[in-house]
């Protein structure tokens, strides 16, 4: 197995943390997004959407999209479970991971990609050029702040985002909080449960992956 990775980017970090929690050592191929290596002809053969991460299996199958890669790894390497154990736990984990992707990470992407100078003609990922819309950056910032409050409420009285066990939802939320710091959105001072959770999950060895 080979992970097409970018050591500085948030999305592949979700897979790296996931693999580290499973105790997996993945071979990594660094795709330097700052140099535009994701647009090279050779990488387009691996993922026509020109984004990382991509997991290439030993038989040559390429899986992209974070959630797909993590679900593959979960099925292939069930221990420890990162999508819960029971049907209800699975649903709760997927529900929260999906909220984090759609309300948190998507807003964060809007805020980041529509404001950073270097991404002027790349406000969306992928090979097609899209101009930035500054209003989307503003709206994204607010939506991220709102979602961090939502996470804080969810974490009240809970050790982890989707309940009693560490899961992909915690990984995604951790990556979201660290990504938000790129545009100087930090955990609000009144979000004490989020802070407690963040301190705990970021001190797990996998967080360094």
């Amino acid at each position, binding site marked *: 197995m080979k992970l097409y990775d970018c050591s500085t980017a948030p999305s592949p970090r979700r897979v790296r943390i996931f693999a580290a929690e499973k105790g997996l050592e993945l071979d990594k191929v660094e795709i330097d997004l700052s140099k535009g290596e994701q647009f090279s002809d050779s990488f387009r053969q691996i993922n026509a959407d020109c984004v990382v991460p991509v997991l290439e299996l030993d038989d040559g199958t390429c899986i992209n999209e974070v959630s797909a890669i993590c679900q593959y790894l979960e099925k292939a390497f069930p221990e420890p479970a990162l999508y819960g154990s029971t049907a209800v736990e699975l649903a709760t984990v997927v529900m929260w991971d999906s909220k984090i992707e759609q309300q948190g990470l998507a807003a964060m992407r809007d805020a980041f990609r529509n404001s950073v100078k270097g991404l002027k003609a790349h406000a969306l990922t992928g090979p097609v050029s899209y101009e930035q819309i500054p209003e989307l950056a503003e709206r994204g910032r*607010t939506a991220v702040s709102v979602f961090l409050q939502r996470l804080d409420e969810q974490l009240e009285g809970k050790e982890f985002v989707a309940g009693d066990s560490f899961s992909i939802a915690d990984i995604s939320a951790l990556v979201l909080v660290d990504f938000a710091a790129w545009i100087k959105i930090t955990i609000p001072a009144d979000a004490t449960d989020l802070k407690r959770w963040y301190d705990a999950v970021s001190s797990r060895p996998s967080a360094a992956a």
Partner: protein
Amino acid sequence: MIDLYYWPTPNGHKISIMLEECELEYNVIPVDIGAGDQFKPKFLRISPNNRMPAIVDNETGESIFEGGAILIYLAEKCGRFLPTEQHNRMQVLQWLFWQAGGLGPMAGQLSHFVNYAREPVPYAQDRYANEYDRLLAVMDIRLRDCEFLAGEYSIADIASFPWVVPYRRLGNDLDKFENLRRWFDAIKERPAVRTGVDLGKAWKTGVPKSDEVHATMFNQNSETVMQAAEALED
């Protein structure tokens, strides 16, 4: 970076305008006062009076409530809109406190009886309409002699402007206040003021109608506040 706890009301606008004027970077954390966000126990740590606006300056860790105090803090942080020389500084501070103790509360009460009271209370409406009218005249007279309340544009103007904005809805008009009108028009044109007043415009749901929202906003007393504070202890 500054976290701004905010909802688009005149008191909220004081700080959104100030942050724009100072060109400071900030995150907006909406405090939906109709939904009761301001009574969430955790918000008490930031704002023990259950009111927005409040700010947390992540650079210094300072957490501040009360619009006037926030304005002074930001002015000192940026070295703008509050002179350091004593005479000029006192000019600003006396008009700032005049706003915080007079114009704001009187206009706020008037707004309550005009916009939110479930039944007309003529005595209260007259009382606050007269006070608002008197305070606008006080401003107008002051502005005969100077361009802005304290001479130069300052946090006293930033604090007062948002409470003049709703004059029409509060049953007044600026036609009889020539100097106030000039002041109002000049401030209205400032780009930072426009951006500040526009912040979160789309979130507004208008005058609350449901009993629940009305109760959340206006039926708070010592009991409800103590309950929130106790939840914080747990």
